[in-house]
């Protein structure tokens, strides 16, 4: 008597699970992207009440590892996938598709009381490699530089190491902070601090620059003019030297619910949210690239 009922309820559960599976999207990865993607999914879910999207962080490396293991539909990443990760994915039968959903002017920040207002990419690299260890060597007061960076699972950590440190090791004295927000808090409290964060994190919730924070102007080299990432034309025109794309990766060409959500992100409304969260909309070559993934 009991058994048929059990079987029936199991069947119902399975059926119910199936009909919902289509509309559930798991997104995991970059801590730089988490607030943005969370906001995007909230607005999207409001418009599409039958959709459920779960967004979690952990770092780009964690998101990509989850995609490789086929545990998530979308991986957020603030850096492109490494060749090693691509190979691992393919060995696992996962074919990653790359979509760019926004542009970030990766911001190098110091304490508001620090008189140094601009640096070259080379100087920043030398500071984070530990070759320059006192502010007086870059035109500041005589105090030892206190380094703030992200942890190895962060896409920002990897991107910065590749493009600013020229793929050399970080100084062992760098503090490894647990997320962008912690770096901002650390720098505001530390007169001798320098750190790097996604541009969305240098503003407070009203869109004003955080008090006690200084966003450095960065010059490509000693001969070029330093520019700030706070003006969107600098980032869009490519004048700001450490701008980067913000990625989402899917397993296979996006389709159904995942495709609909990404289309929303790249559409007028989604890109407006990207700007509201203080990142920059997709433009130029990246638009071409997104076409390859069907957008």
């Amino acid at each position, binding site marked *: 008597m009991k058994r048929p009922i059990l079987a029936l309820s199991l069947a119902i559960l399975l059926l119910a699970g199936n009909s919902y599976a289509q509309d559930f999207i798991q997104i995991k990865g970059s801590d730089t992207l988490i607030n943005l993607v969370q906001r995007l999914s909230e607005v999207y879910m409001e418009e599409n009440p039958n959709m459920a999207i779960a967004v979690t962080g*952990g*770092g780009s*490396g*964690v998101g*990509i*590892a989850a995609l490789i293991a086929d545990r998530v539909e979308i991986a957020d990443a603030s850096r492109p996938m490494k060749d090693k990760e691509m190979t*691992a994915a393919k060995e696992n039968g996962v074919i990653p598709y790359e979509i760019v959903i926004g542009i970030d002017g990766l911001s190098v920040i110091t304490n508001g009381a620090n008189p140094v207002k601009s640096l070259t990419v080379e100087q920043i690299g030398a500071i984070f490699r530990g070759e320059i260890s006192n502010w007086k060597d870059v035109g500041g007061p005589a*105090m*030892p530089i*206190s*380094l703030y960076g992200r*942890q*190895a*699972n962060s896409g920002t950590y*990897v991107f910065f*190491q*590749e493009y600013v440190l020229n*793929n*050399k*090791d*970080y*100084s*062992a*004295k*760098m*503090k*490894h*902070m*647990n997320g962008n927000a*912690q770096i901002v*808090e*650390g720098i505001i*409290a*530390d*007169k*001798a*601090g320098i750190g790097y964060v996604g541009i969305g994190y240098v503003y407070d919730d009203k869109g004003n620059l955080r008090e006690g924070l200084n966003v450095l102007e960065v010059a490509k080299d000693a001969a070029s003019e330093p520019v700030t990432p706070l003006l969107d034309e600098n980032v869009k025109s490519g004048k700001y030297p450490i701008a980067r794309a913000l990625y989402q990766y899917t397993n296979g060409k996006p389709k159904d619910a995942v495709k609909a959500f990404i289309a929303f992100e790249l559409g007028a409304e989604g890109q407006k949210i990207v700007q509201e969260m203080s990142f920059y909309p997709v433009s130029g070559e990246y638009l071409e690239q997104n076409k390859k993934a069907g957008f």
Partner: protein
Amino acid sequence: MTKTLKNVLWRFQEKAIENFFLTNGFIAIIILLGIFSLLFIEGFPAFRELGFKEFFLNARWDPTSPERESYGILAMVVSTLMVTLGAMVIAVPVGIACAAYIADVASPRMREIVKPVIEILAGIPSVVVGFLGIIVVGPLIAKIFGISNGLNAINGSVLLAIMSLPTIISISEDAIVSVPQEFKNASLALGANRWQTLIRVTIPSAMSGIIASVMLGMGRAIGETMTVLMACGNAPALPRVFTDPIRTMTATIAIELGETVQGGLHYRSLFVIAFVLFLMTFLVNLVSDIVLHKYQKVQQ
């Protein structure tokens, strides 16, 4: 007939209950052995590949380095020991004094208030304590020591001391309360005052319980992860003084395990760290056990 049946049933029941308790006892041992062998099996291939020198005589940990991958755990072991030592230096005197106050000095009304408050302290999540470390303790330390930031070993020591205090206080207090009243009466009758009685008679008599409480508090401090991960800076360099930022073994495992490829060298090296950490806590427990036994024998 029914009587013998009842008897058999009863005996069977007795046997079943006995076996049930035996199994429960064994499960704890089996789980312990299981964890030990899991850590060993997962970590050993990395140990074999890289060797003793790379892990233990090398202070540089950077498995994702683009220049040269490096797996030295020396800096982490030193960090963990430093922050634990710092925490104990703060927590042991405060904890014992507090326990003695509650057990021996405080009025019953006061005791009713202080004890639950300390128990609530034990329930504060470690993330919250870590947050306090960043927002409150860090800037305070920076000001006191005249350094630019407070994300260092002192900060971790203060926070871990706060977290291990409830353990130390409540177990020490139990030990002090359970010292027989006759001991104190004898001391008082010999003309000692209350302070002398407390310091020379009551606390020494409760010493085995107090040592156990300190060891348990130490175990808590060594194993704590989130707090030190948030408030100590996590710089991989070998710390030299307490104002240097530190990166503990637990924090390294927590930060890095999520992104490593399962079965890879980096993944296995994290298991080596876990194995060493396990051995360290095991050693603490073993030593405390031996000390306890010695002490009890001396007392008898």
